[in-house]
């Protein structure tokens, strides 16, 4: 019988420095892609060599909402859909903090959809990592605003007939300055995208297509998360700079991934300082945060 390689006393995993180990093992199902996204986020922090005290993670509710509880940086597990308002408040209080929202499609685009478009419109300097698994996974596989046409969900037992959101198009048309989409299989490109999004001043969005084995995949007879990873491997087409209006995702159809939007626009705080400096002249002291 084959023995494991590490017969010697087990060494700690390098990720353990960034995880709250008292909460591990996590609750995510076998073959879920969320652990991979967390690793990619950690790798992005490592590439940027950011001090962990300067990073804050905000999550909403849902499977992805658990990320805030597992990552050992200052983190905030908020009410359903309200991750972006909390993150906006956090950012405005201390604009030097790298505020990152890691949450799911149902949390950010459905329940928090209004907050998403207005934070993008104002160009608040936060990074949004939206993990899209095409369903509400924690609550039982209900139809989400990203569920592809024709896919089965527990509230759409004969297939979904609602037109889904195209997240990059929504983000770009609302005013996001950085929009990228990768799957959980493209870990290295995802790491680069998260690092670029963190560096970008303004509202940056990274959509991550992630397998949900227990609900989306099982209800649609798509096999395990590994089968979905193989599907991404065979059907993801990289098109950098593709027009976002063409990025709709059909049920088990080709998925366009890449970096679509990367532009410069004054952030919310910069725009406010510039405007007030024009109105009040030298009397105005530029706002640099309430935390000194």
């Amino acid at each position, binding site marked *: *019988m*084959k*023995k*494991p*390689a*590490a017969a010697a006393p*087990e*060494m700690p*995993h*390098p*990720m*353990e420095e960034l*995880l709250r180990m008292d909460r*591990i*093992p*996590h609750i*995510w*199902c*076998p*073959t*879920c*892609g*969320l*652990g*991979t996204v967390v*690793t*990619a986020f950690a*790798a992005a922090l490592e590439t940027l060599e950011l001090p962990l005290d300067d990073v804050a993670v905000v999550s909403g509710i849902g499977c992805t909402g658990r990320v805030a509880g597992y990552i050992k940086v200052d983190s905030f597990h908020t009410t359903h859909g309200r991750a972006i308002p909390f993150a906006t408040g956090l950012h405005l209080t201390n604009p030097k903090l790298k505020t990152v929202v890691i949450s799911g499609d149902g949390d950010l685009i459905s329940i928090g959809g209004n907050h998403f478009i207005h934070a993008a419109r104002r160009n608040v300097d936060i990074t949004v990592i939206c993990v899209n698994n095409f369903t509400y996974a924690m609550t039982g596989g209900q139809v989400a605003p990203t569920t592809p046409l024709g896919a089965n969900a527990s509230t759409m037992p004969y297939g979904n007939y609602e037109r889904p959101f195209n997240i990059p198009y929504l983000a770009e048309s609302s005013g996001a300055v950085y929009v990228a989409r990768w799957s959980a*299989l493209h*870990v*290295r490109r995802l*790491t680069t995208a998260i690092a670029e999004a963190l560096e970008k001043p303004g509202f940056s969005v990274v959509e991550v297509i992630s397998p949900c084995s227990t609900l989306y995949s099982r209800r649609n007879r798509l096999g*395990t*998360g*590994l089968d979905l*990873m*193989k599907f991404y491997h065979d059907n993801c087409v990289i098109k950098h700079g593709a027009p976002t209006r063409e990025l709709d995702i059909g049920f088990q159809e080709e998925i366009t991934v890449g970096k679509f939007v990367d532009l410069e626009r004054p952030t919310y705080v910069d725009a406010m300082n510039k405007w007030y400096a024009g109105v009040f002249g030298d009397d105005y002291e530029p706002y640099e945060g309430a935390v000194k």
Partner: protein
Amino acid sequence: MPKDLPAAPDSTKSKYWRKPLDADKVKIPHGELHILTARCKGCMFCVEYCPRGVLEMSEDFNAKGYHYPVAENDPACVNCRLCEMLCPEFAIFCLAVEEEDAVDDS
């Protein structure tokens, strides 16, 4: 016409039949795999996507009742760390073997 032309490469053996100019200087990195078997939930991402085919699934089970990966072909590991990046359970990682200890493939 020069006489001592090299023999035509056998393209069936390797796709990379042109020898790189610095082939004698480059050392292939090697990695040492560490697998925390108790954490594994048997998703097989590492086994499926290891570019060197180092890993395979075990026949026995861990305490959770899953098959876990074993390093079947450890010397082939080039420390690319793709398994470490893909693992959703933080259960596998790779450490570089120091240069002087590295096995020279040439």
